């Protein structure tokens, strides 16, 4: 005795297939393409002038920061406006190590890890708070870090200090090394973000992003996942801070710990598209294109950026990449799943519904909640297109 069946589930589990990409060849092609891009970028110091590579260093740094912030806010639901704490700490860790004789380039990974270690007690403090209070707490933490660093005259106090240890390098070589190291950091950061989102943790994060209470109720270890992301973001931002001091060859507390960093990474991510890996990349590119063209306008760029970010946050929440991905249905980083119903050559793509749909579930799709068991990874959502470019969690 069953109730009237509202929808028809597929007749047999055997007729459903799950894959990561639209076509078998896609991962191979994508891998080759990524390698090609990497080779091109790697060769740039031999091709272009140092002005360009220096600019690209700044691009890579911001892109790495934005990717980290996107993981925090777009997936883990943690809106931090205090990442500059780790940026500054990363820079100062490199400074401290360099002052004790370590090559700054070698000090960089150590500094990043050091920031990750600091991230643990910081997480313990701020994790008790939610949304707005969490944000304020991260801001206060950054402010406290700055205030503490300033008290050490050996680190330059309030005026900052130069970075020792790189003076012996020839300038063009220094520029090239700095460029390659920052490219490497960016690749590692992007790869880390990509792998995390494809992993079990990524599934938990996506679940949290979509419905935190629901995620908890199926046993997802929310606190742990968030802690993991927070520490990863601390490491990432610490590396970015290390890159900063290396590229600038000096550090000043007010600029290393400036809230402007948070402003930039937040705005860039929102405009590019929060909740996607491609978004921060696109946003950073856009930012630098604009900055190069509007550089004569001084602080205006932050004003314009801020206003655009506000507008995007309210009216185009999925950002630029969200608009592109929806329009042309493309994903560069496949972190979601495609569901194939047997008998249909192309996957049944469910377009994210905006507002109320006109009728029942779109034909050919499985309705939410009716999952064919066994085919899908534990805890995953079986919708035709998961993760990728969906909306970030609200609060």
């Amino acid at each position, binding site marked *: 005795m069953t109730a009237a069946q509202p929808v028809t589930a597929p007749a047999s589990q055997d007729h459903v297939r799950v894959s990561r990409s639209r076509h078998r060849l896609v991962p191979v092609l994508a891998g080759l393409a990524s390698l090609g891009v990497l080779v091109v970028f790697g060769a740039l110091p031999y091709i272009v002038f140092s002005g360009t590579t220096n600019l690209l260093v700044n691009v890579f740094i911001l892109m790495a920061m934005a990717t980290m912030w996107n993981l925090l806010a777009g997936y883990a639901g943690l809106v931090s406006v205090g990442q500059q704490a780790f940026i500054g700490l990363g820079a100062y860790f490199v400074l401290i190590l360099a002052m004790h004789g370590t090559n700054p380039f070698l000090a960089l990974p150590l500094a990043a890890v050091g920031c990750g270690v600091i991230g643990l007690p910081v997480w313990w403090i701020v994790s008790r*708070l939610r949304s*707005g209070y969490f944000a304020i707490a991260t*801001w206060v933490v950054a402010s*406290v870090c700055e205030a503490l660093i300033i008290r050490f005259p050996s680190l330059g106090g309030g005026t900052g200090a130069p970075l020792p240890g790189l003076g012996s390098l020839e300038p063009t070589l220094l520029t090239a090394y700095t460029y390659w190291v920052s490219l490497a950091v960016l690749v590692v950061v992007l790869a880390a973000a990509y792998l995390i989102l494809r992993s079990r943790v990524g599934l938990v994060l996506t679940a949290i992003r979509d419905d935190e209470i629901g995620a908890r109720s199926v046993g997802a270890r929310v606190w742990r996942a968030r802690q993991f992301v927070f520490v990863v973001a601390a490491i990432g931002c610490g590396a970015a801070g290390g890159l900063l001091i290396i590229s600038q060859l000096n550090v000043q507390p007010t600029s290393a710990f400036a809230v402007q960093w948070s402003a930039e990474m937040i705005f860039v991510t929102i405009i590019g598209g929060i909740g996607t890996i491609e978004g921060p990349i696109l946003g950073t590119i856009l930012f630098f294109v604009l900055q190069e063209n509007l550089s004569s306008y*001084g602080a205006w760029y932050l004003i314009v950026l801020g206003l655009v970010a506000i507008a995007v946050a309210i009216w185009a*929440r999925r950002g630029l990449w969200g608009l592109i991905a929806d329009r042309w249905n493309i994903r560069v980083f496949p972190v979601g799943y495609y569901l194939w119903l047997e008998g249909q050559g192309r996957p049944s793509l469910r377009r994210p519904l905006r507002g109320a749909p006109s009728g029942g579930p779109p034909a050919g799709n499985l309705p939410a909640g009716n999952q064919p068991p066994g085919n899908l990874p534990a805890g995953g959502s079986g919708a035709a297109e998961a993760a990728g470019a969906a909306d970030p969690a609200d609060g």
Partner: protein
Amino acid sequence: MSWVNAIIQGILIGGLYALFACGLSLMFGVMKVINLAHGDLAVVAGYLAVGVIAVTHIPAVWSFILVVPIFAVAGYVLQRTLIQASLNRGVLTTLLVTFGLSVVIENALLQFSSANSHSLGIGHLVSDSFSIGPQISIAYLLVAIFVVAVVVLLGLQYFLSLSRHGRLIRAVADDREAAQLSGVDYRHIFGIAAGIAFATVALAGIAWGMVSAFAPTTGTDTLLLFAFEAVVIGGLGSLWGTLAGGIILGVAQQIGAQINSADQFLAGQLVFLLLLVIRPQGLTGQQSTT
């Protein structure tokens, strides 16, 4: 005995901090909006006062007569438009929008003014003081500001408790949907609450301009954190809690200054972090702060 002096100073300045904080507390209590641009609004009020004084040549102490109503209206409008639009999209969006506003305001101030600090010159009133005994010297200005702050808080308390709109504000804060079912247009009520919050922060900003100085970044460097610290220490939902929080913050800072003048603000921030950890709902708040 300079400790006693410091404590008294702390209490008096605490009144000002409470005035900063009550707008923040109101906006969160009613609309669940954490306005990250709150401190910057105070700075804008200060700049506006400077401009008003330059144009109308009224004495600085009376500048609030023009600035506060302007801010009240601006608050209502901003709430009905931008902030309501963000609220409809969720908590994340609202946080990001207020953060964006904060950055935009600061950089706009930097663009149009300079990075220099300003203050509202009120002449000899700043330093006029009276003495109690040989070591305690209290500035009239500080006492005046404290009195104003307490009066405003009292007035706000009365408004919320006894007036019809105060009742509607409390109802909407308790349960927005139930208020709608009783015929209340909650967006209008939100607007009123925002107008009140903006008015109080404008008053606080002007007072701050008399006691101290403000620069484009003072909003986020200093004022926002003070306001939050007062709210968190004192607890949400109670104006008297906010007053207590402001006073505690002021006293903590003055004691910190007695120990080491460079650590004045750090002391306050550490107390804030400590309280955030052990008792996020503050002295008077209920368990849930979200």
